[in-house]
């Protein structure tokens, strides 16, 4: 996983709530067996509208998505996270995230930043007033900064922050505890089902 320490970039406001993962990447794009190439499917249906915010010239190259509440609800497809990353996003800001999406994002190195809904709306208005404005995300300080208007703090637990800062993947970390997994397995109830 790519480490996330600090990131500076422009943002794009997505003024829609309940952006489900079927919108982020429609099911037809999930048939690929590789882990790349999903940027083309990002918001595929919405991007057919030339007026859709991601199509507007002033937001080309933006790397922070600032979306309405309940972003990433629905399907567990991690392809939604890959599509956002491969399109160029490093972080998504929303008032609420779907649980599975948020989890997938932190596993793959896309930073989900949760802020109160009113703050998200203020950010969106600020971006719309000046799309060229740059924001800096400092994960170690848990801050989203915008030069002239100061700092917004966000919450993220210490462990997830550490994992993202170091770019560590969970499997390697868990495999350090293989002995404990083996010990647990010895105590499992004998009648639990096996598929074989």
């Amino acid at each position, binding site marked *: 996983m790519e480490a996330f320490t600090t990131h500076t970039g422009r943002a794009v406001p997505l003024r829609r709530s309940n952006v489900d993962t079927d919108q982020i990447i429609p099911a037809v794009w999930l*048939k690929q067996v590789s882990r790349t190439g999903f940027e083309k499917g990002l918001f595929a249906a919405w991007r057919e509208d030339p007026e859709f915010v991601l199509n507007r010239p002033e937001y080309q190259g933006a790397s922070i998505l600032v979306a309405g509440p309940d972003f990433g609800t629905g399907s567990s497809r991690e392809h939604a996270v890959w599509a956002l990353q491969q399109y160029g996003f490093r972080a998504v800001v929303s008032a*609420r995230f779907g649980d599975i999406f948020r989890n997938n994002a932190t596993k793959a190195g896309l930073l989900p930043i949760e802020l109160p809904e009113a703050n998200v709306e203020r950010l969106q208005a600020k971006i719309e007033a000046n799309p060229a404005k740059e924001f800096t995300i400092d994960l170690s300080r848990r801050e989203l900064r915008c030069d002239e208007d100061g700092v917004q703090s966000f919450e993220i637990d210490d462990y997830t922050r550490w994992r993202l800062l170091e770019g560590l993947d969970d499997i390697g970390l*868990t495999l350090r505890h293989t002995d404990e997994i083996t010990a647990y397995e010895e105590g499992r109830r004998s009648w639990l089902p096996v598929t074989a």
Partner: protein
Amino acid sequence: MGRTLADKVYDAHVVRSAEGEPDVLYIDLHLVHEVTSPQAFDGLRMADRAIRRPDLTIATEDHNVPTTDILSPIADPVSRAQVETLRKNCAEFGVRLHPMGDAGQGIVHVIGPQLGLTQPGMTVVCGDSHTSTHGAFGALAFGIGTSEVEHVLATQTLSQRRPKMMAVTVNGTLPYGVTAKDLILAVIARIGTGGGQGHVVEYRGEAIRALSMEGRMTVCNMSIEAGARAGMIAPDETTFAYLEGRPHAPSGDDWEAAKEYWRSLHTDDDATFDKEVVIDAAELTPFVTWGTNPGQGVPLAAYVPDPAAYDDPTQRSAAERALEYMGLTAGTPLRDVAVDTVFVGSCTNGRIEDLRAAADVIKGRKVADGVRMLVVPGSMKVKAQAEEEGLNEVFTAAGAEWRQAGCSMCLGMNPDQLKPGERSASTSNRNFEGRQGKGGRTHLVSPAVAAATAVTGHLAAPADL
């Protein structure tokens, strides 16, 4: 201090717990399908890792499966490649697979319970958000992404934090003609698509206890639509009766030992929940969605809502967008909404009781002119059972199409899709924009409402016939 059902199951699976770190949680059953697994198998290969417990892993083909000709190779080369990739991966890593054409094939959340692999007190995961279905047995079951699929394959564990607990208590008795699907659609409309976020929902109360196992699966299945990764119902005699004698259920002395343990799996009287919702079953009626998220639902007898009636600006603009996408006008009676397609199936409502409920309504009647009705059993076993009962003939005599098992039009990864602008009454779980096909418009309903709608050509309950 007492513990909830979910606490008890969670605690029994903690392999390792350390201050400041997530717990390592053991996984008893890992269900795999073709869509969310290929990149996880690739990850194993790149790191030269094996599957720790192939004997706790089972795979099936469901999302891409065509429901017309299941014995021929899939025509769509991309779908075919994905299914073939699963076959190669299962062969290479030693995972039992139920491929297309196999009598054990079906939707991943239908075959687990059918085989008796889903049991009370287990942890069950799958790279699919509707894994919550298995919580109907008192299992802690939730959907995961592909990175976590790889993690479970490699370690048989997940890195987890204890979820918060939410109780949804449904008191009283469901009125005649009101089903598990109506109940869960009403719950989602009440608490919203984010209402269960961060929580495991335990469904409790008289109306829940009175549900069959299949009804309980329908309820738990849609927990994710209320934002909760998992839904659970405490096991009871209904659960035991469903499980007894299934291929992978314990037998003999093991059966008695298992039941003794399972009886301890209930929320203690002095346990507390982080959030509680109480619903009176007697007030529930057949329920339908009008919008583009599963929380946008109303009783069938109601009208398409007016966005202006919402105080919250976010809800108001979401409602405006939804009406525009759905091609609906505020104030229209839902019963006046005409459909092109009726879909009966999916992991929500593709089990035998669902097919019986739809068949009961449509028996001796005809699908309305201009309406296409697809009936897609959730598994080949459900299909065989339905055919033994003659349900297939009831459907085909009415003019409906009787199909092979798979996810089908729930998400349109196979050829079963809506065309742009087409409208469906669907027993599936998601009415998202484009979910059933680009530009398609979906109304979520119960199997009984779906069948009545097929007869009249517009949204209807059996009582309207």
